[in-house]
């Protein structure tokens, strides 16, 4: 049976929300940008007036200002955005229990079978569009189709405050002429590979022989070919069904460049602690630690290494991260940003191979749990590593609570 799938996208999410709260800036070009003082000064979102002036997401704020004099820059307020995201999902939940988030502002909805209650896909899309507009004061664009890929494409075709229906009858006219880069998961590298083989539009891709594509891109070749032909049958997750965590990581752009191993050590400890806390709260342990390093010329690399026994102890993670760092960084440039990630996760309560020569881990594990409960009761700064006191400007951030927006994994 053919499904009915909606992709709902809050238009210019952050910028629209800020404009809603501040009517006086609604008619000016607005961007939401990080704090340049903390060196997070890039454009996170823009409204249509700023877009018309050529401002791009990800641009540095001073560049945006040059393009667009009179630009209003608003600091981000993630708590507010999460609240809107939650409220939007509450509206969607009136129509289906299958809602899958793609980032903070995009959701897929499977409304198959709701025709008799709420009308067909387009009708539901229209109701949602109107309700979000009147109840939340922001606009959405909706794509209606029978699979997730085309629904997403549809929501990008007409914005803002619009609905695009891509049906089995019209997708060849609507979707196939689009550039192949519009397709979900076709990024810069894949696009280049396609261009080398004269695949420029989604239609080109769909008409290719699958076996050639498989030779070119492996399994992904086949997957993308299926996407282009509308054979994508990936289900939409039920509400509350969590995706399986593959890794837990935190990263930060530091307030000043890191110039020596002491600085790096401080940041790695902060990040490792946050990773460890999050691992524990998920009931997981990691067996691989990875670090990512970016220097002040924005050149970055990632390295990873195994640890002998699965762990969620921050000291172990930090030690491995330091080891990786020392082995791989030559200090030709100061560092701008660091990340620590725990991967190859296993459940925390599973049986482990005991080490004959190393002392028992359980004492250290219970120590960390004690610290967790202390922090829960008295705040995250009630107990800290002594090293954190050395430079509290540098370490005065809390990756676990400050960074609530989780990026969507590119491939799941």
């Amino acid at each position: 049976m053919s499904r009915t799938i909606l992709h709902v996208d809050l238009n210019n999410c952050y910028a629209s929300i800020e404009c809603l709260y501040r009517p006086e800036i609604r008619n000016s070009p607005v961007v939401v940008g990080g704090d340049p003082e903390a060196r997070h000064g890039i454009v996170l979102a823009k409204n249509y007036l700023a877009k018309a002036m050529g401002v791009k997401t990800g641009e540095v704020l001073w560049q945006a200002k040059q393009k667009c004099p009179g630009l209003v820059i608003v600091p981000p307020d993630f708590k507010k955005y999460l609240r809107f995201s939650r409220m939007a999902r509450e509206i969607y939940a009136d129509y289906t229990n299958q809602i899958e988030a793609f980032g903070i502002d995009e959701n897929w909805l499977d409304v198959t079978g709701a025709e008799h209650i709420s009308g067909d896909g387009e009708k539901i899309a229209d109701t949602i569009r109107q309700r979000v507009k009147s109840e939340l004061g922001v606009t959405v664009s909706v794509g209606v189709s029978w699979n997730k890929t085309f629904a997403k494409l549809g929501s990008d075709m007409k914005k803002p405050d619009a609905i695009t229906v891509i049906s089995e009858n019209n997708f060849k006219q609507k979707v196939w002429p689009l550039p192949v880069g519009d397709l979900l998961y076709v990024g810069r590298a894949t696009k280049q590979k396609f261009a080398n083989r004269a695949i420029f539009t989604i239609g080109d891709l769909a008409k290719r022989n699958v076996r050639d594509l498989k030779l070119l891109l492996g399994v992904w070749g086949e997957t993308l070919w299926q996407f282009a032909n509308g054979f994508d049958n990936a289900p939409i997750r039920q509400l509350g069904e969590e995706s399986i965590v593959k890794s837990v990581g935190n990263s930060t752009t530091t307030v000043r460049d890191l110039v020596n191993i002491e600085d790096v050590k401080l940041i790695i400890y902060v990040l490792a602690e946050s990773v460890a806390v999050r691992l524990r709260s998920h009931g997981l342990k990691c067996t691989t630690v990875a670090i990512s390093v970016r220097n002040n010329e924005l050149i970055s690399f990632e390295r990873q290494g195994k640890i002998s026994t699965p762990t969620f102890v921050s000291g172990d993670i930090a030690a491995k991260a330091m080891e990786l760092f020392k082995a791989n960084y030559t200090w030709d440039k100061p560092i701008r940003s660091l990340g620590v990630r725990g991967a190859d996760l296993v459940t925390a309560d599973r049986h482990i191979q005991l080490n004959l020569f190393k002392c028992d881990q359980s004492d250290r594990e219970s120590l960390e749990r004690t610290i967790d409960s202390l922090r829960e009761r008295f705040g995250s700064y009630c107990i800290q590593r002594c090293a954190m006191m050395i430079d509290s400007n540098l370490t005065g951030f809390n990756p676990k609570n400050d960074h609530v927006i989780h990026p969507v994994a590119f491939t799941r």
Partner: protein
Amino acid sequence: MSAVEKVFVEVTAKHDKEGKVRPLSISWEDGRELKIDRVIDVRRTASLKAGGLGIRYTCKILGRAVYLFDDEGRWFIEM
């Protein structure tokens, strides 16, 4: 720009056992307690004029219809 203002106000409301809320009166800036004579309409909506959103109570106060918003416990009116 229109001169609509967002004015936060103190509200006396009745919360019943079902969790329903009914505002009874608001304290005005000059110290007057203004009785809400009637609640005409209740809906969740954004306030485009004042900037914000919440549950909007269309109230009759001193013969005038006033929009009173409850934004998660903070009440404001469009002026």
